[in-house]
């Protein structure tokens, strides 16, 4: 069922996300990193945060899925949103930013890339369904974000 999938296209969407994040980080680098503050005490795992992340991720996933009607607009949106996200994530430095994004980011961006690609193939019958289903890795990403990421971040920031 996935034999017709253009892996290069999915990879290029993934790269666009990463480049955008890196671009945001570079903006922060030139602006000057700020000192990280003390972490807020959150319950681990935080299921409320998990639900919030699922809501935000699914809204963004629906939007980029629909924007797949036009590839150029989809790419512009992906690039600018990831630049803004990168700018926010890397405010306190590259290392903290990477620790805060890496555990769940790999899966999350993969899920977004699949859904963005599925949006491009919206007119092909039955083809996007599998991709959308795999795109549900976003659920796992939300769980990892609310459990593992905040745990790692909390311990590193406390040190």
């Amino acid at each position, binding site marked *: 069922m996935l034999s017709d999938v253009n892996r290069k296209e999915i990879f290029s969407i993934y790269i666009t996300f990463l480049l955008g994040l890196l671009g945001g980080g570079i903006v922060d680098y030139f602006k000057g990193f700020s000192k990280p503050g003390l972490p807020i005490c959150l319950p681990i795992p935080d299921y409320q945060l998990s639900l919030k992340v699922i809501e935000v991720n699914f809204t963004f996933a629906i939007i980029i899925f629909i924007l797949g*009607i036009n590839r150029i607009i989809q790419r512009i*949106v992906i690039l600018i949103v990831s630049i803004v996200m990168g700018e926010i994530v890397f405010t306190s430095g590259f290392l903290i930013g990477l620790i805060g994004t890496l555990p769940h980011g790999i899966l999350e961006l993969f899920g977004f890339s699949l859904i963005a690609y599925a949006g491009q193939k919206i007119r092909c019958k039955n083809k996007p369904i599998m991709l959308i289903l795999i795109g549900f890795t976003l659920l796992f990403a939300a769980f990892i974000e609310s459990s593992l990421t905040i745990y790692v971040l909390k311990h590193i920031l406390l040190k």
Partner: protein
Amino acid sequence: MKVLSKKLDNIKLAFSFFLLSILNAIFSNLTFKTNRYLAEVFFLIGTGFLFIGIFFTIFMVISLFKESQNQLLKSDSKSSYNKNVNNPLILQLKISFILLLTGLSYSGLVSTYIVWILHITDITSIDLIISFTLSFLLEIMTAILILPRIGPFRETRPGETRIIKLHDFRGGITMGVLTLSRHSPFKSIIFIGDEDDSITRTIEAHELGHATEYHPIFLELSTIFLLSIIGPLIWFVSFGYTMHREVISIFLVIKTVLIILSAGIAILLFLRVAESRADAFAYKVIGKSAYENLVEALRRVYGENIKSTEDAPLWSKITHTSSRNAIKTGDPLSSMGIWEFPVVLSFIASTIAIIRFNSIYIIYPLLFVGSLVVSFLIGLVFLPIVRKYYRMTERGSLNFSFLLAGIYMISSIIALDAYPNLYLVISSFLIGIILAFIITRAFLDLHNSTKVVVATLPIYLSINILIGLIKILPHGG
């Protein structure tokens, strides 16, 4: 060899004058703290050198244009053609030169008046708007008085579209100017070749499309508009940062540059739509053979390598669209890419929205992406209704739908900018609706355009109200 050495001399002269002006600016800056009078003297000398440098640059550009025009002509007719009074490229250069010169001079005069006579030391957006309006009005007045009296426009009657057939002229150009007359405020001239074949007839039909819809007049107005914003900005920045006569915040400068960029890309989009409309007009006049004739015309101008419109040079593809589907289908919006209207209109919308913010860092890209997504999604919502009335190609319907969504979005953002003045909010939104109706009217007849606006506007308003309620209700009103 003589020509080459002349050109090199001109380049050297222009370069040395620019260098002298830069040196004077440096001296002016260095002496500003110790001797203000001397700094001003250096600045004025530098400005003088800058103008001389610009003069030599323009001189060089004219000679380059002449050379490129000579390449378009057959070698045996070069000398006679250059002396011809009906030379479209020279006429175009004259018009551009007059507009540029008057634009810079008027904005200079207005800015000097504000800084030196009114003694305003802190330039605000209101000062910029006033100087822009004054320069625009003065330049329009000059354009109306001078341009209709240049070259072949002198013999053209107001309201007339004069067709001038030139020997060995490839392609076609339409020019138009505003004039003062009770018969008509426009004068148009079409330049085409004198051959009597189907290719020349197709070019003529395309150019007639431009003339009947007054595209050159709109272009003249938009050029004046753009120059009227650029001029005051240049003067205020030079008065502020080089002469230290007044203070203009870098934030205001960035905002104005964003407005200039938005206006620039809007004009480029208008140019592409105008070319597509002229193509659609040619299709209606000539029929299905119009596309083949166009490719042949391109082959005549750009060489035998042209197999389709996609092979045309980049500049032609930027201004005339690369697919030129309009001349195949008769649908003026079928040539445009689907991304063009949402991207350009969102850029304009985000520029308008940023005017009220005190920072553009991060907010501007977010506003741009937000408006891009919203206009795209609303365009998709409008699509079934628009498709019903537009009744041409699928791509054309999509583009028309995005155009409508973009205009609604811009009008509501202008209305938001006017908040909390309720009267201004309502009037700006009404103006937006009228503008949407006028633009719709350009593509549909009166009956259908009214129906489209009446059907889409309530949808747009209800989406806005719904989003508002979703955002407000969870936060307890």
